[in-house]
């Protein structure tokens, strides 16, 4: 469980050490790519929680989503359609959904009885 967190830290450090910046004109696409990556990672964590995690899906999703998001935003800019906002919206919604689900799984693990009770009563846990 600590290994992925360590990976995150190392990644952050690597980014700092290489002092690497991209041209400002492309900063927008990088931000969409970061958003897509975040979405993939949260999806992966959710998969781990739900025991249907697949390494190949995560890694392929991680890179292709990031590249596609950036690429689509770029093409959108070229053809005059702000696909950038579409990407932000799509990934943003998914990130919050995944976060909500992850939170619920964590709560279930910490307080199994209480959560079990509530699930028993309502049958299914619905997040408002």
């Amino acid at each position: 469980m600590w290994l992925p967190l360590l990976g995150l830290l190392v990644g952050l450090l690597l980014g700092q050490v290489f002092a690497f910046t991209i041209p400002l004109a492309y900063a927008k696409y990088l931000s969409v790519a970061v958003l897509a990556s975040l979405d993939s990672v949260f999806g992966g964590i959710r998969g781990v929680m739900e025991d249907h995690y697949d390494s190949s899906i995560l890694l392929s999703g991680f890179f292709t989503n990031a590249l596609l998001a950036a690429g689509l935003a770029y093409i959108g800019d070229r053809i005059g359609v702000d696909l950038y906002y579409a990407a932000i919206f799509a990934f943003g919604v998914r990130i919050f959904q995944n976060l909500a689900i992850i939170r619920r799984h964590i709560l279930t693990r910490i307080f199994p009885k209480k959560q079990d009770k509530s699930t028993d009563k309502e049958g299914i846990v619905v997040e408002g």
Partner: protein
Amino acid sequence: MKVKAWQISLTIALLSLGFLLSVQFRTQQVMVNDLKMQKTDDLLAMVKKLYEKRSDLIHDLWDLRGRERNFEADKVEGKALSESMQQEYTDLQIASGVVDIEGPGITISLPPRSGNQYYYYQDVAFLANELFNVNAEAVAINDHRVITTTAISEDNSSQKITIDGEPLDEPIVVKAIGDPESLKAVSIAGGYVDRLKIEFNIPLIIKEEPNLLIPKAGHTTYFNYAQETKE
């Protein structure tokens, strides 16, 4: 601890995410400081603010320039005042005889008289007056500076000429500092010098001097009672 497969791939994903986040942070930092990436509204606000600041600064600049000019004028005025006061002070010092002075002028030498002939104190006083008449700036009789309060008189018992109470020895030499051309007029026909020469047959000698030295007066004039009249 056994490393599970999901941990490895998730670690790779998170590592990449960390790297991307790091780069994005820095890029964003650069972007925030770059004017090209600012919103139009923000830029407009900035421009407006800068215009206001600029006009304030221009206002200040004019204000300060005006003050500088005033200071400059005051300085010039003060300098002129100080110079004229200095000049006046020097003039007054010379006039009241508190300093030694030098300058071009003439000397009138009266040779010693013999027998029962002698000089009267009026001779000396008239000579001094004549010299002042021809624009002498300073006069001295045997190095006794003649100032406004100098008393030229004679001793009642010895009949000797006195200046401020001090006996005057012969030969008498009268020095006068001033414009030499103007001072030469002292020997004009009908003047007192002329009279001494012709009428009393005194062979006085008038000599032009390029540089005469006249010592300061033996006493100074103080005004303890006399005051300037108020208008």
